[in-house]
């Protein structure tokens, strides 16, 4: 008998449950040996960790607590970021007047003011005022949870679900990383040892909104989804919408993992050991300073570095005319029919295409696109912002579709580059672009057509 037949025979005798049982029984035996051979004379600390674990990883309470924690982090971020965001926007808005009058004073040509103020200045200050406050709150809050030792428990809770779709429980840790930055999260998938499951984690990481998309998601959900509420309730509704969006991303992650592990990445999940470190009181000062200052700063620098050239480029395209139509408008008109199918428009499609280098700049480019067509309103408040969008035919459906497209679409340039570096495969890199793109087109398309058919709008 050949070894291959022997293997097939063994596979027929075996079941998924038996595979688990083998590992389970090894652990039971270890546990039993420790019961007999190890005694503890002072174990208060260990007991505390065990008691907390019984709550945080409980089959009943585990998930509600997890969602509540996520909600709390979002709520703190949204409620806390509102005021500083508005203050920054107002500050930059008032500063703009002085810069413009300075240019008028020295009789600079109109295009100088156009490129530098309307293009560069508005684009980058938008990024700063909308992105900086949430980042400065989100990163430290998340880091506190991480340092407390809660994140490995999340991985533990999620493991059962991941296993059911053929993926690896540690994938939830790389997803958590994705909230910060997908490009970094792709590198962090190195913690998953088995290549098949690691590939799943890489291909689906993009369905977690990175902080470059947070700004867009927060603004759109508070402007359009929570529009009829005020004050604390508004932040609460915005939080709810955001949790919904994140949950949807998680569902898509599971779905894509499941499909892939039944097709291109066939296989069974491997056994692995997840260390649950003892709970520790985080060093609050250190954590807050390190994550808010260094992390936010580096993300911001990246955003501005990419946003500045893109802002200038957009302005130039919007102001170079061929005949009586600008280059930008040609592109917009070309993309418009396709955008309309998805409940979006040509401007939005173009913003996403030009935004490939970094998700941070999608919204600024969109705004510049809208503003370049005449109505030169100053965007110094969210009300003005909403007016611009509504003037261009936006409804709640447009906002929802843009949020979904932003959540689901292809990863940014940096992430794609990292996927290539990690997988060393053009095929998988291309798939990591293709899969999200197809889904990002499919979902808004279905929603838009359904809403229109039902006559909801």
């Amino acid at each position, binding site marked *: 008998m050949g*070894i291959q037949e022997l293997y097939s025979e063994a596979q027929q*005798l075996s079941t998924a449950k*038996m595979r688990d049982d083998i590992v389970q029984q090894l652990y039971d*035996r270890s546990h039993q040996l420790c019961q007999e*051979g190890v*005694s503890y004379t002072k174990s208060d600390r260990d007991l505390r960790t065990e008691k907390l674990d019984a709550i945080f990883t409980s089959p009943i309470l585990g998930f509600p607590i997890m969602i509540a924690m996520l909600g709390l982090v979002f709520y703190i971020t949204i409620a806390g970021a509102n005021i500083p965001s508005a203050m920054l926007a107002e500050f930059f808005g008032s500063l703009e007047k002085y810069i413009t009058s300075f240019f008028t004073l020295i009789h600079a040509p109109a295009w100088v003011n156009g490129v530098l103020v309307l293009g560069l200045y508005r684009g980058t200050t938008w990024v700063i005022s909308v992105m900086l406050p949430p980042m400065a709150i989100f990163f430290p809050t998340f880091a506190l949870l991480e340092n407390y030792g809660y994140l490995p428990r999340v991985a533990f809770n999620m493991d059962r679900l991941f296993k059911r779709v053929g993926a690896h429980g540690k994938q939830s840790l790389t997803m958590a990383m994705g909230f910060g930055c997908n490009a970094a999260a792709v590198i962090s998938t190195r913690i998953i*040892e088995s290549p098949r499951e690691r590939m799943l984690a890489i291909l689906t990481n993009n369905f977690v909104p990175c902080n470059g998309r947070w700004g867009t998601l927060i603004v759109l959900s508070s402007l359009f989804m929570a529009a009829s509420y005020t004050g604390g309730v508004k932040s609460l509704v915005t939080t709810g919408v955001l949790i919904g969006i994140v949950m949807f991303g998680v569902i898509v992650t599971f779905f894509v993992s499941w499909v892939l592990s039944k097709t291109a990445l066939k296989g069974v999940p491997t056994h*692995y*050991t997840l260390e649950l470190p003892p709970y520790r009181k985080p060093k609050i000062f250190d954590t807050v300073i390190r994550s808010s200052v260094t992390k936010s700063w580096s993300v911001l620098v990246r955003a501005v570095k990419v946003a500045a050239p893109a802002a200038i480029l957009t302005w130039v395209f919007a102001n170079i005319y061929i005949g009586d139509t600008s280059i930008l408008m040609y592109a917009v008109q070309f993309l418009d029919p396709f955008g309309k199918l998805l409940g979006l428009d040509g401007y939005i499609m173009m913003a996403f295409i030009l935004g490939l280098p970094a998700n941070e700049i999608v919204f600024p480019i969109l705004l510049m696109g809208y503003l370049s067509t005449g109505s030169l309103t100053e965007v110094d408040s969210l009300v003005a912002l909403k007016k611009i969008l509504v003037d261009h035919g936006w409804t709640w459906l447009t906002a929802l579709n843009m949020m979904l497209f932003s959540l689901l679409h292809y990863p940014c340039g940096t992430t794609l580059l990292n996927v290539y570096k990690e997988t060393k495969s053009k095929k998988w890199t291309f798939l990591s672009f293709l899969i999200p793109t197809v889904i990002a087109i499919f979902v808004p398309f279905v929603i838009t057509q359904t809403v229109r058919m039902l006559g909801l709008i």
Partner: protein
Amino acid sequence: MGNEYRIALAGNPNTGKSTLFNALTGLRQHTGNWAGKTVSMAQGSVPFKDKVFQLVDLPGTYSLFSNSKDEEVARNFIVFEKPDVTLVVLDATSLERNLNLALQVLEMTKNVVICINLIDEAEKQGIKINEKLLMNRLGVPVIKISARNKIGFPLLLDTIDRIITGAIECHPAQMKYSDEIEEQIRKIEPKVREMVGDRISSRWVSLRLLDGDEALLNELNKRFVPEGVR
């Protein structure tokens, strides 16, 4: 040379395995490239009495299934390279998680010594380990050490020496699984033995086949099946 013996060091990550390796071998180290190629393992020699122990530091792993390159390399070394003695280094402060690796090694090979490392740290935390009981249950020597403070080295080296000379015989206790699993093992083991003979544990191979370990299958194919038959 007739007096050289190969000793493999296995253990979880961060159990002080490499500390033990460095403390024992000192500067007598070099990097060896074993089968598996991508992972290189440190090697070093320890002279003891009339013998020289060649220590091989296997990659630190949580288990010895074929989840990753590291686990495969460590596993292949223990099973196919057949070291004279395998040391399993465990962290005394988290023995329960660590023991599971020891149980797996006991299924794979006969001459095993269990080193419970960080014993001083464990005592500080109020953890008391009854090594005599563990020795009884596991059927192989269990030795408490502290690699950092070089506690327990003479006994460890002496035990290795006595296993090699045959003064101590190891009878690794085989993990007993549920009836259902044992029944499947019984069905498949005779056929496995026909193929691998006594070269490796047929019980262990049967278990791995039941677990669907394809990497091991490929390895067996490479090593045991003659070129033409494949």
